[in-house]
């Protein structure tokens, strides 16, 4: 280590911890709300693409593909300029949520496609109404199959919440950054932020993997 570098400063770390943790609340909130938006909007996109006509499928699918293959950070910038006056957290949750909705719509679609054809045929044979077929037969099986994938995306969204700091949301990394610059303690504040991410996402990933193994049986 060069002479220019200071080493880990325990005092600074102790001071940074409450600041970082205070931002963690916003991070969690953004994760939960963002994923709720993603889960609902993603399902809507998948259903519109799957159950509507060809034209509707394209009208929904093309914008979804555009959102999916462009950077969420630039989307945040664009939304920030296009929709002024909205609370940054609300705006951030909507943009991040819609971005992930375009991922989740693909996940739902794969799950719907994985429901055996015989299930549809059985519903036809029973003359079940269309709504009932989706709600009672297809979606429960489809969603169950894709639960682990949804979990993985939730963890992934959690790790992308720092992007919200570019539109001034006071989430954890924003707080860490601010503390780092005022106290010249980036090492301590960012290391703590990284540790919090690891401590929160790793057990969640393990849970998702357990779920995956159980559903695979």
């Amino acid at each position, binding site marked *: 280590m060069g002479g220019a570098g200071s080493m880990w400063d325990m005092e600074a770390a102790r001071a940074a911890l409450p600041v970082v943790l205070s931002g963690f609340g916003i991070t969690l909130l953004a994760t939960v709300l963002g994923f709720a938006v993603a889960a609902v909007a993603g399902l809507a996109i998948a259903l519109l693409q799957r159950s509507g006509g060809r034209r509707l499928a394209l009208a929904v699918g093309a914008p979804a593909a555009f959102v999916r293959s462009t*950077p969420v*950070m*630039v989307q945040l910038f664009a939304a920030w300029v296009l929709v002024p006056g909205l609370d940054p957290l609300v705006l951030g949750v909507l943009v991040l949520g819609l971005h992930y909705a375009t991922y989740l719509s693909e996940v739902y679609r794969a799950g719907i496609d994985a429901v055996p054809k015989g299930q549809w045929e059985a519903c036809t044979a029973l003359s079940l109404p269309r709504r009932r077929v989706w709600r009672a037969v297809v979606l429960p099986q489809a969603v169950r199959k894709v639960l682990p994938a949804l979990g993985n995306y939730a963890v992934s969204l959690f790790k992308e919440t720092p992007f919200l700091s570019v539109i001034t949301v006071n989430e954890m*990394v924003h707080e860490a950054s601010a503390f780092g610059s005022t106290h010249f303690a980036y*090492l301590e504040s960012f290391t703590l932020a*990284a540790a919090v991410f690891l401590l929160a996402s790793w057990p969640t990933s393990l849970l998702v993997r357990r779920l995956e193994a159980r559903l695979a049986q």
Partner: protein
Amino acid sequence: MTDSGTAVFLSELGRALPAIGEGLLVTLEATALGAALALLVAFALGLASRSRLLVVRGAARAVVEFLRGTSLYVQLFWLFFALPMLGFRLDPMACGVLAFGLNYGAYGAEVVRGAIAAVPAAQTEAAIALGMGPVLRLRRVVLPQAYALMVPPFKNLLIQLLKATPLLSLVTVADLTFRIDQLRSATGGTAAAYLLLLLLYFALAALLGAGMNALERRAKARLGVVSGPGGRGGPRAVRAVPRAGRAGGGA
């Protein structure tokens, strides 16, 4: 946008074109270097996590979990802001390439591991029956088949990596986002600049996707699997080979 606003935007855009071109090159460079490093990391960690030695396997797993669990955003900021405090200062571009390579390499390691595991055990058995040693089996039999399974997920990771490159603009690298943000300031903060930026990224992603689709088609053709262009190739696609593997019982 008003008509005069449009005119201002277009004339400023014309003036900024060379700078935007440079930014585009920087973005492409970061994507290419990051992807190259990620590929290296993916194979190193992916092969190590299949090692027979528990220590090697465990270490590889731990590194993968660490790199995946700590958020790319934080990793980049840590390299850029925190590492200098330990006395190491990296060029901002190097910070980006390192963060992209390590983070996406960790995700890629799971792809490599999974693809190798998905090659039927009977293929390895046939190679053993022909007297091939472990290295030869991996190189000549397992990896060429696993490769076809890796291409589609690698395509997703590559596009994810491209979409992460605007982070560079936050650490002073003059990438595409950085240049267009300058254009936006010069044109009085209109959203048109960002819409243009989104279109540019969309085009880049489409190009990369098309390239990877071509690779996928070639890989599948070599395995004798027929599929539509860019078809969804899961592990199932390789099962054109007769189903393999006999569980313990024997005849």
